């Protein structure tokens, strides 16, 4: 078989890459990580979306949930509307319960008798469905069953407003409405002991909650229904008398899970982009050096008539080969990552359906992205290779003539500064593109680290603000409005430091044609249990007239301070009330007013007490003691809520740790490649100094100072860019349920900076090894290659 020039050139590519194996491997690894992150996060995002969708479809999750009015007639009004698949009505109400000795306000949710028409069905995981002829049988939602350790055969107690009823749990079920166990959008993060859901046959649900009949209308749209058809049905529900219509996107559990999915979706683009950009930069630096070293050869080839296209293709092949190897490995490992992430996620959240699918298109796009970026990084040096005139290229010796720039000329006057320091400064301007590459690598690594770290530090800050400054209680209670001496008993309880009465009322606030489902909280005018944090970060008092509203309502309802809104409590009539101002709180979007104002808006409300304990009390003992006070209907432990949040954060810390490590790898790759190129270009200088007996330690230090200078210079830019990226990342998570403000602090900034500098310092070790191994005799005989 004849040896064609193409085969020879391919052989050259492989041999050249073998000579530069560590650098090529570092770039391939960065490409691998970029492609792996893309494939794993994008396919996981798609898998989780499909898993949710499958559960939602199988269990007929409502597209629209309407409160108020006459559900029977409302259901009739939409049953035959275009796009409607199923309609059902049910009774749903929050009632006092006692589960395993714990008092809480749980939820009773009615199950429509006809399974074929049931919307928001349940997925029985153990036991059996309740017999609708047996009024004392219920199914317990899985999260509560896990929290309290209950199963089929257990007993729970429910208060119907007049008396307690003991019920038998026939089974445990998962529900599409409670994949994330949230009472409502204001309670996305809650004490797991303060909420439970019981599924009860519809007729029994009405009786158990003391309701005259159904109070909700549920609509499932067909898979083919359009957005217009869904909007028309929502309009029909309102015109038929519904007080508030909640689309599926706003449903608390779905919205919380959607936030996570949004995170995956963003990660699948942003993080791979950082790695692939770093890989492209490193590849550009490596190939620029290769092309520069081979200029005389390229000039000779061109002079002898070699086609420019062939030479460009030859040098781009380097990029394609390195990126191709990295991308292929990234696709394969990404597929493994997809399965692992999807399964781990759906298991952790107890999602009933797990769909693990490896999409060929994602693999193809991931591979193409990796190779494309590699091609791009190699293209510029490849084109440079053929744009130089052959005669000029042949004269080249592989290194450029260094002309003194302004910085170099200026620094000649720094006679008091050691020459090695002057060398370090000048090395920055000696090869501006390489310096820019090192700095960009540093910036990318810091962006990756801070975008991840900012997420968790901001979450920690959120919890600090929420549970340190806004919610200043240790526990909150709901009590029987008829029990008059609860306040006195609480004050007399040992360990209780402060007690304040208050009120809570679910309500719908509306302005124009927009409405929002929330909770109206009434407190003492000079309450010490709650800090009202303004959007500016200051704290204010409750207004004597009007209400304070969560600032998410500015966007939700299009209102501003001084506007009048309509507040309709779940039990009561609409009231026009002035918005006195807004509060900016980390969790939830509430309405606040003095107990007098709130009482006038919602005369029928739940009576609550806010408690603060002395520092030494046992939380479990306080729960037991206070729950036993007659008239106490529920007990919510604020600290348990905090503990719950900390548990979720543990996963985030792992994520941040991984990202810090990956950021360091990213920084290492770019800095290592630029450093070795710097070393290669300066091997003659270094060999000369070694020949003259300069100790290796001194040379390593001088070289490290030069290489680290660009990294250190890039730190301020990287830290600022990282902070901006973290801010942008957090903004995408902020809504009416969470308000995430960026809080980085000095610790993560310092840690990120130290990690990058450490990675840069680590990349000097190979340089020191190269310096030790330098063949002085060979190099000083030749010009630098």
């Amino acid at each position, binding site marked *: 078989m004849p040896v064609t020039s193409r085969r020879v050139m391919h052989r050259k590519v492989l041999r050249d890459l073998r000579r530069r194996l560590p650098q090529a491997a570092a770039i391939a690894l960065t490409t691998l990580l970029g492609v792996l992150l893309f494939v794993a996060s994008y396919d996981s995002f798609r898998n989780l979306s499909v898993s949710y969708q499958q559960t939602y479809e199988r269990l007929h999750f409502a597209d629209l949930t309407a409160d108020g009015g006459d559900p029977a007639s409302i259901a009739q009004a939409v049953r035959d509307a275009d796009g409607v698949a199923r309609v059902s009505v049910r009774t749903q109400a929050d009632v006092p319960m006692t589960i395993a000795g714990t008092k809480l306000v749980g939820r009773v949710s009615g199950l429509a008798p006809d399974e074929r028409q049931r919307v928001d069905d349940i997925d029985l995981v153990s036991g059996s469905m309740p017999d609708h002829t047996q009024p004392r049988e219920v199914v317990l939602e899985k999260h509560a069953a896990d929290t309290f350790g209950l199963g089929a055969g257990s007993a729970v107690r429910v208060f119907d407003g007049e008396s307690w009823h003991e019920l038998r749990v026939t089974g445990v079920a998962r529900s599409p409405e409670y994949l994330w166990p949230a009472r409502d959008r204001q309670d996305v993060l809650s004490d797991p002991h303060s909420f439970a859901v019981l599924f009860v046959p519809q007729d029994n649900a009405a009786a158990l909650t003391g309701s005259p009949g159904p109070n909700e209308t549920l609509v499932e749209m067909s898979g083919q229904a359009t957005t217009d058809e869904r909007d028309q049905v929502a309009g029909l529900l309102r015109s038929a008398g519904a007080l508030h219509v909640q689309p599926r996107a706003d449903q608390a559990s779905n919205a919380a899970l959607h936030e996570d999915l949004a995170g995956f979706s963003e990660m699948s683009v942003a993080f791979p982009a950082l790695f692939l950009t770093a890989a492209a930069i490193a590849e550009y630096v490596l190939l620029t050096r290769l092309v520069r070293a081979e200029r005389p050869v390229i000039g000779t080839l061109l002079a002898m008539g070699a086609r420019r296209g062939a030479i460009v293709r030859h040098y781009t092949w380097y990029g394609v080969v390195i990126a191709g190897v990295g991308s292929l490995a990234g696709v394969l490992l990404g597929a493994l990552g997809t399965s692992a992430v999807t399964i781990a996620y759906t298991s952790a959240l107890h999602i009933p359906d797990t769909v693990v699918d490896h999409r060929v298109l994602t693999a193809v796009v991931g591979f193409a992205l990796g190779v494309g970026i590699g091609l791009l990084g190699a293209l510029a040096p490849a084109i440079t290779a053929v744009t130089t005139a052959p005669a000029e290229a042949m004269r080249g010796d592989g290194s450029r003539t*260094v*002309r003194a720039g302004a910085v170099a000329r200026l620094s000649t006057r720094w006679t008091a500064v050691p020459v090695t320091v002057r*060398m370090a400064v000048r090395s920055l301007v000696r090869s501006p593109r390489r310096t820019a590459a090192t700095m960009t690598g540093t910036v990318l690594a810091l962006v990756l680290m801070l975008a991840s770290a900012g997420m968790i530090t901001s979450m920690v800050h959120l919890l600090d603000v929420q549970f340190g400054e806004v919610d200043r209680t240790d526990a909150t209670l709901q009590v029987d409005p008829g029990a008059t001496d609860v306040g006195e008993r609480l004050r007399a309880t040992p360990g209780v430091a402060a007690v304040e009465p208050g009120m809570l009322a679910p309500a719908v606030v509306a302005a124009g044609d927009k409405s929002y489902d929330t909770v109206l909280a009434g407190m003492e005018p000079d309450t010490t249990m709650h800090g009202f944090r303004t959007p500016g970060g200051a704290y204010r008092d409750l207004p004597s007239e009007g209400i304070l509203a969560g600032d998410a309502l500015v966007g939700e309802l299009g209102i501003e301070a001084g506007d009048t809104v309509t507040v309709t409590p779940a039990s009561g009539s609409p009231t026009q009330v002035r918005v006195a101002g807004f509060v900016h709180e980390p969790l939830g979007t509430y309405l606040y007013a003095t107990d007098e104002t709130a009482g006038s808006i919602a005369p029928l409300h739940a009576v609550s007490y806010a408690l603060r304990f002395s520092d030494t009390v046992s939380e479990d003992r306080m729960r037991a003691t206070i729950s036993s006070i007659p008239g106490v209907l529920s007990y919510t432990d604020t600290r348990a809520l905090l503990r719950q949040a900390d548990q979720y954060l543990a996963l985030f810390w792992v994520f941040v740790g991984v990202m810090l490590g990956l950021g360091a790898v990213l920084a290492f790759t770019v800095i290592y490649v630029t450093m070795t190129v710097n070393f290669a270009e300066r091997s003659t*200088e270094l060999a000369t100094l070694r020949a003259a007996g*300069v100790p290796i330690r001194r040379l390593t230090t001088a070289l490290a100072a030069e290489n680290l200078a660009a990294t250190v210079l890039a730190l301020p830019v990287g830290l600022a860019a990282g902070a901006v990226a973290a801010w942008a990342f957090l903004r995408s998570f902020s809504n009416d349920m969470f308000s995430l403000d960026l809080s980085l602090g000095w610790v993560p900034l310092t840690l990120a900076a130290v990690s990058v500098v450490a990675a840069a310092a680590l990349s000097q070790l190979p340089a020191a090894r190269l310096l030790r191994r330098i063949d002085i005799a060979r190099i000083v005989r030749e010009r630098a290659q």
Partner: protein
Amino acid sequence: MSAPTTTGVRGGFRLEGVHKVYGTGEAAVHALRDINLEIPPGELVAVLGASGSGKTTLLNVIGGIESADSGSIEVAGVRISHRRPSSLGRFRRDHVGFVFQFFNLIPSLTAAENVAVMIELTGRGDRRDVPRLLDAVGLSDRAGHFPAQLSGGQQQRVSIARALATDPDLLLADEPTGALDVATGRTVLELLQDTSRAGRGVVMVTHNEVVSTIADRVVRTSDGRITSVTRNDSPADAAAIRW
């Protein structure tokens, strides 16, 4: 223009039975074969030979940047044979200076800084001597110029000043005029001759017969062997030679 002064006569060396082979088996190249050479201190020695005759290897072995496979080497009173080049940093720092054909200056440093950096990095010499060293090579007015702003001859003179900055006993120059024209080459040779006359040993590798006439002793090499060592009792004045 005159070479820096030195005290006493120094820089002698002795090689006995030195062998050096590159590669193995059929690919083995005998760069040095049974080299026996003794040069007294203070002499200017020219090593003359064709390409591949082993003259640069000989220079590198004397300077301790390559090791011999066998034989004994003593330079400036220090026995360096059987020691690896990596362990000879201190020897080179204390006893030898190098001048290369392609100067090997650091492009980002000025002439003065290229000299000063050697003092800074080796801890030998005195930074205050830098102006004197540059003056000695006739470059006082180019101290602040970068290599790219200097001619080839000026760059080579800077490299000589750099080599002398640590006050070596022996100056080793590998084809110091190889990249220069006649006029600038002659200036460089004058410097080397002055350096030797000031009492420092100088070994200069060249393939140019005319250049070798300025040496006190001419060593001829061929195929890795020393073919002759000739004492030159009346070396030519470097300023007067032409080629």
